[in-house]
């Protein structure tokens, strides 16, 4: 391929492989490939084993669809977690962000995307049916919808809410408002509106 500018098929193959990754342009793909060429053999072996390991050992949890090494992930199999709550997130990385807060001890459901008509993604392409199965088989008291506060995330939240509301389960949505360290001057209308609507009384212990 002309963009990869290499006549050695093995090198071209690796450049093309890197180029297929999100956010990697042709130049970066070339740079990474030539970095690997210069890398000691042992390090390169470790790198390739790490890549293969992802495909061989990583699967999706049969309950929450999070990435896992076992059939049931560490979070779902942990008896110390609150099994009456499920937090619905778009991607596995969102779990990492929420876990970092140490403010939530319940379970999760990963949707693996959001409803996006212009990308042809509908509810049937997401793991929403898995969530419904869990609601029927487990004793869940609260669903926390933590999709991103964008139009597509909101639409997905609305869709899930419509599905779950007949089941008489408490449905909550992550609060929306001004992020720490931001300036009101630069906040967009809907963020400010949400911040005003969800304003809270100042607590003395703050």
């Amino acid at each position, binding site marked *: 391929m002309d963009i990869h500018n290499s006549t050695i098929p093995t090198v071209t193959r690796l450049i093309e492989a890197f180029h297929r990754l*999100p*956010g990697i342009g042709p130049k970066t793909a070339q740079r990474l490939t030539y970095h690997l060429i210069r890398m000691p053999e042992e390090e390169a072996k470790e790198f390739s084993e790490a890549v293969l390991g992802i495909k061989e050992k990583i699967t999706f949890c049969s309950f929450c669809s999070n990435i896992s090494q076992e059939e049931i992930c560490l979070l779902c199999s942990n008896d110390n977690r609150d099994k009456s709550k499920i937090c619905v997130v778009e991607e596995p990385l969102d779990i990492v962000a929420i876990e970092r807060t140490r403010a939530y001890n319940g379970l999760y459901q990963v949707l693996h995307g959001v409803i996006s*008509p*212009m*990308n*042809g993604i*509908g509810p049937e392409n997401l793991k929403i049916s898995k969530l419904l199965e869990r609601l029927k088989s487990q004793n869940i008291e609260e669903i926390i919808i933590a999709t991103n506060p*964008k*139009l*597509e995330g*909101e*639409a997905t939240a*609305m*869709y899930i809410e*419509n599905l779950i509301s007949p089941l008489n389960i408490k449905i909550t949505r992550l609060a929306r408002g001004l*992020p720490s*360290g*931001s*300036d009101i001057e*630069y*906040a*967009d*209308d*809907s*963020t400010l509106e949400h911040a005003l609507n969800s304003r809270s009384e100042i607590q003395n212990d703050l």
Partner: protein
Amino acid sequence: MSPAKPEIYTSRGIVIKINNLGESDRIITLITPNFGLVRGVAKSARKTGSKLGGHFDILKYVNFSIRETRSISQLTQATNIYGFKKIRNDLNLFFQTSYISEVAEKFSIENNPNLPLFNLLKTTLDHIEQFGYSENLLHFYELKILELNGFAPELYKCVESENTLEPGNHYYSPERGGLIDFKYSNLKSNLTLLPANLNTIKYLRYLSKSNFEKIDNLSIDEIYQKQTSRILKIQIKNIIDRSIKSEKFLNKKI
């Protein structure tokens, strides 16, 4: 040769598409009155502290500044003009307006101003926001977008014989962009021929001469609505030569 000097300009635009780029950037696609389709990178828009992220969401009408560079342009500032709140809070309206936006995107060209197309999109979204969605409105929009881009369907003459059509049932050919007299239908086996009932033809002619105010109270049988829908959608796909991903969401009722 020295690199081209960056140029900064401002415009209004409706955000129709967002794609993530790299670690925390987003590519924003807007339809604007003065520059046609505009694509730009909003740096760090995915971060919570971003000054741009909240403004650049789908179906937001914004004022923005953009810096032209040699590669993809960079969005630098944004303020919200209007947010189409009713559409954003209704799942069905979101599905229907996604189709409307996608059709507008497919007919838009980068750096090619198309003020009538922008006005049509904006007025259609305003109309839905104020009065709701209807099949009549969608068909009116589809027909107008074809007309604005120079693909107005021929509804009065046979595209084969060029004779004025007699009142009656005929066919519509997307390849030829108009009605074909039913007498010619057997001779043209290489063309896609869609049935066009007399009432469907009258409906299309009425829409063609109509405006937003006239179409709201229009009542038409479902069979003719469906025929019209098929004709216009196949005609649009025939011109853009691509499928419209959001089309399958049009009839999804939640």
